[in-house]
């Protein structure tokens, strides 16, 4: 259970949101909506602990994440605007190193299965910068199926994906929620029914 308590955030001396509270339970998909500049990315980054709020706290299963991060990070998968992959390494290397860093061990077969699922078979040894934007996005997303994370925080995950990719991701999101996982995501496109039931949270642009 992820809880945000009275979060206040300001960037460049402009208050984005004040006293914001929300609770997301396991088995829930929260769809964060709002115009450009409303603070969606900032809110997501605060929820992951990458940014600190001006005041307020984020609690995972009742514990403040700033006090103890390791428990939360074992269960967390975050994908932001940046892919998290190094352009000069291959997809396979990128994923292997990432798994080692996150202390997740996955048999090689599973790794190849996931690469096949995202349609990157044959491209796994190519340095990532030679792939198209959509393919690079798929490399980043393939980690969803590699780390057994309970909490998914995804910032505009559908960027650069084609129709098939969007469908695959939405299906995965529905399955994850069905298994008792928890997802918070933003997107400029509407979530279709493939993503399943979801709750909407609107963030307004403050002047």
């Amino acid at each position, binding site marked *: 259970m992820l809880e945000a308590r009275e979060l206040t955030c300001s960037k460049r001396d402009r208050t984005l949101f004040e006293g914001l509270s929300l609770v997301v339970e396991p088995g829930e998909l929260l769809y964060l909506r709002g115009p450009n500049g409303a603070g969606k990315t900032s809110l997501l980054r605060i929820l*992951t*602990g*990458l*940014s*600190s709020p001006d005041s307020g706290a984020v609690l995972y299963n009742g514990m403040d994440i700033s006090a103890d*991060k*390791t428990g939360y*990070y*074992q269960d*967390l998968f*975050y994908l*932001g*605007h*940046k*892919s*998290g*992959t*190094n*352009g*000069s*390494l291959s997809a396979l*290397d990128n994923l*292997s*190193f*990432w798994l*080692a*860093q*996150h*202390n997740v061990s996955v048999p090689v077969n599973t790794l190849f299965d996931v690469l096949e699922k995202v349609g990157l078979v044959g491209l796994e040894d190519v*340095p990532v910068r030679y792939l198209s934007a959509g393919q690079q996005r798929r490399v980043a997303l393939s980690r969803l199926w590699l780390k057994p994370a309970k909490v998914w925080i995804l910032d505009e995950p559908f960027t650069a994906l084609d129709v098939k990719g969007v469908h695959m991701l939405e299906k995965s999101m529905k399955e994850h929620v069905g298994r008792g996982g928890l997802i918070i995501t933003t997107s400029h496109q509407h979530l279709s029914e493939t993503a399943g039931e979801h709750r909407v949270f609107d963030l307004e642009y403050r002047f």
Partner: protein
Amino acid sequence: MSLYQGIFKRDMQVAFKQKAELVQPLMFLLMVVTLFPLGVSPSPDTLQRIGPGVIWIAAILSSLMAMERLFRDDFQDGALEQYMLSGMPLPAVSAVKVAAHWLVSFVPLLLLSPLLAMFLNLTVDMYIALVLTLILGTPLLSLIGAIAVGLTVGLQKGGVLLALLLIPVFIPLLIFATSAVDSAALQLPYHAQLAIIAAMLLLAAALSPFAIAYSLKVSQN
């Protein structure tokens, strides 16, 4: 693969795929050193007198150029975010990355040093002192430099600002290192200077990983 092999091995692999980026600072170093005999005086005595300083100044300047790649790519492609979310303690990650960076940037310098010593007419005693100061001092450059790199990694125009921040901080190291080599030239003992550099290195090794981690968090905010 243990966690640190996941960082260390990765950084080494990335470094070897970016060989051009590694070679350029070394070439810069070599060219700067050749400027001095050409611009100041080719007389062997003069070169021997200014030699230690020239090599150390060139080392500092070329390290400033090489320093940026420590966190820049990882920041821009989001790998740094993923490290911060991995559960690995950020000071430890920073220390490992600095160690990998030092190996890749400064060991070639050490290998190049006999050539530089020959260009500047250093005696064998001076050269030994020089190598000792480089071995003790270049990790200090990497450790302290990494703090400033962490702070400026999110800025567009990082380059010159990095030099402005770091050169004043490196001046004490420069003074002690060149003093050691100058003492060696006069056949005087230089344990004191080496001890001071070693003390600075130990202090930096103990404290800078935490400072680097804090700088990275500031840049991520």
